[in-house]
């Protein structure tokens, strides 16, 4: 059974990716899980300057979901490129650098910085972070801005370019097409939905940042619909994510049209999930005589 797949020029041995922001830079993860079960890992969203992130509380459990308002806490691109990536590279797993910026100039600068690192296999342009004030999600809710941001990165980065989209829009297909026109080789979807929780005892929002991003099984139906829509509307591969906690979940995304899947919240609950999901996909395929993952990508609409 051949699990290999392609993400816009990046070949993966296995379709399971660590979602950005739930794997850090691997330093803690490797103490609890085995990185080699990932086809690739996407690092925590990185900005040019270091960011301290948002005030706590930063997480809140909701029915089958998780709200987070981390706010892109990261040590800045220089430290990531100089220290984090060389360390992570030792595990020989393709590294996807997830980047975030507030302007096209910044996106271009970031892409240029990462282009100089020998350790980056692909860039993932985060035009969908709901937890930062300037930029962030704004790029992902307008087709024009999404196009411009993608183009800016495209000019400074020759390798595989992934654009990560937000579901907080009326028509994802339009944004997806804009990203592809701007030069995206692949699309990641979805980032979190914007949500919040209120503590009825204090009568105040639970999160320090008031709103946060909703992830986990609660959003799986929305994520599947996005993958279904976008994968039929564009010709580049799609990385599907949103609530994947089992091989069954991953298979739903693949059949909806995802060429690879990413696990975010699921990693927080079970560091061994990548192994379980990979093995489960394999067993499913083998029990039905499916010889290659590619046979079932988009099977629900093909």
């Amino acid at each position, binding site marked *: 059974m051949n699990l290999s797949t392609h993400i816009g020029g990046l070949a993966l041995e296995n379709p399971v990716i660590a979602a950005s922001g*739930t794997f*850090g830079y691997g330093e803690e993860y490797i*103490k609890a899980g085995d990185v080699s079960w990932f086809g690739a890992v996407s690092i925590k969203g990185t900005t040019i300057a270091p960011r301290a992130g948002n005030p706590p*509380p930063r997480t809140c459990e909701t029915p*089958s979901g998780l709200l987070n308002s*981390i706010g892109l806490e990261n040590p800045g691109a220089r430290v990531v490129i100089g220290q984090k990536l060389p360390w992570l590279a030792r595990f020989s797993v393709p590294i996807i650098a997830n980047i975030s910026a507030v302007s096209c100039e910044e996106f271009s600068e970031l892409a240029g910085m990462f282009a100089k690192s020998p350790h980056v296999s692909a860039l993932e342009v985060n035009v969908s972070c709901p937890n930062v004030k300037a930029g962030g999600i704004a790029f992902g809710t307008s087709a024009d801005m999404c196009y411009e941001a993608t183009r800016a990165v495209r000019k400074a980065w020759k390798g595989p370019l992934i654009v990560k989209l937000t579901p907080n829009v009326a028509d994802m297909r339009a944004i997806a097409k804009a990203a592809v026109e701007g030069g995206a080789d692949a699309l990641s979807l979805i980032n979190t939905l914007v949500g919040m929780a209120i503590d009825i005892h204090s009568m105040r929002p639970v999160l320090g940042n008031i709103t946060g991003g909703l992830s986990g099984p609660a959003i799986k139906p929305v994520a599947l619909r996005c993958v279904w829509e976008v994968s039929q509307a564009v010709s580049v591969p799609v990385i599907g994510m949103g609530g994947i906690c089992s091989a069954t979940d991953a298979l739903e995304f693949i059949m909806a049209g995802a060429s690879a899947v990413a696990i975010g919240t699921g990693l927080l609950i079970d560091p061994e999930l990548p192994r379980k999901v990979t093995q489960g996909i394999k067993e499913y395929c083998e029990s039905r005589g499916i010889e290659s993952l590619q046979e079932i990508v988009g099977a629900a609409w093909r």
Partner: protein
Amino acid sequence: MDLRQIHDVDARIVRLSNIRGNLYSMCLEAPEIARTAKPMQFVNIALGDSTDPLLRRPFSLSGIHPDRGTIGITWAVVGRGTQIMAGWQAGRSVRVLGPLGNGLGIDRLCIDHGLVLVAGGTGIAPLTPLASQALEKEAELQVFYGARSASELLDTGDLGAACMVHLATEDGSVGFGGLVTGLLEARLSAGALGNGRPTVVSCGPKPMLNHVKQICNRHGLPLLVSLEARMACGYGVCQGCVVPRAGGKQGYYRVCTDGPVFRAEDIELGECTG
């Protein structure tokens, strides 16, 4: 190369009991965790297959028994997760991720200068393994332990026989009448510690920790505190469980991996959440 120090174990519940009221304890068969766990570390316990509640729940180790291959936790029912756990029965298996957090060992300093533990309420539970290790290594040990009333004091087992345990109850039903911090202050002021400069380790509600910090500052004693925070992962990947750095330093520490034990001067206690 297996770099894993944290294990996700299918642990059998050896014993589960209702201590009293909403307080429970259980003993879990988890040799991989028991073998390497340090006092003040914690584990993250999965509640079952449902996605609601979704996240695991963190609990400090109140017992570490490498010889028997078991660990213990003690918990108060405060919400849905802890309620579900109270319904479990001996014999069933639960998924336990650990050991987590930095923990605390008994080092040269403690052995030479002694150790003072200050616990409020259920905060005594995670201090028990530390006390046991201190006694084993023959460090001088004093324990200050307070609760609302005599009936809310947890059994401190053999501790009382092996070292000084100073009890305080708010209603005066046992020991000192008042808060444990009042008792601590009184004993320190009375010179109970002589000239020594023992390390103080404290675990309990935030207002108590804040008060202990003031007292230790006043008496020039080094203080370590054990913190709690809302945790999503418990093993350092999500950056959800942060506490602000102190002393004008920008940014945050993660309670789950940088802590849960911190030097009191490193963190902004006033702004801890959880």
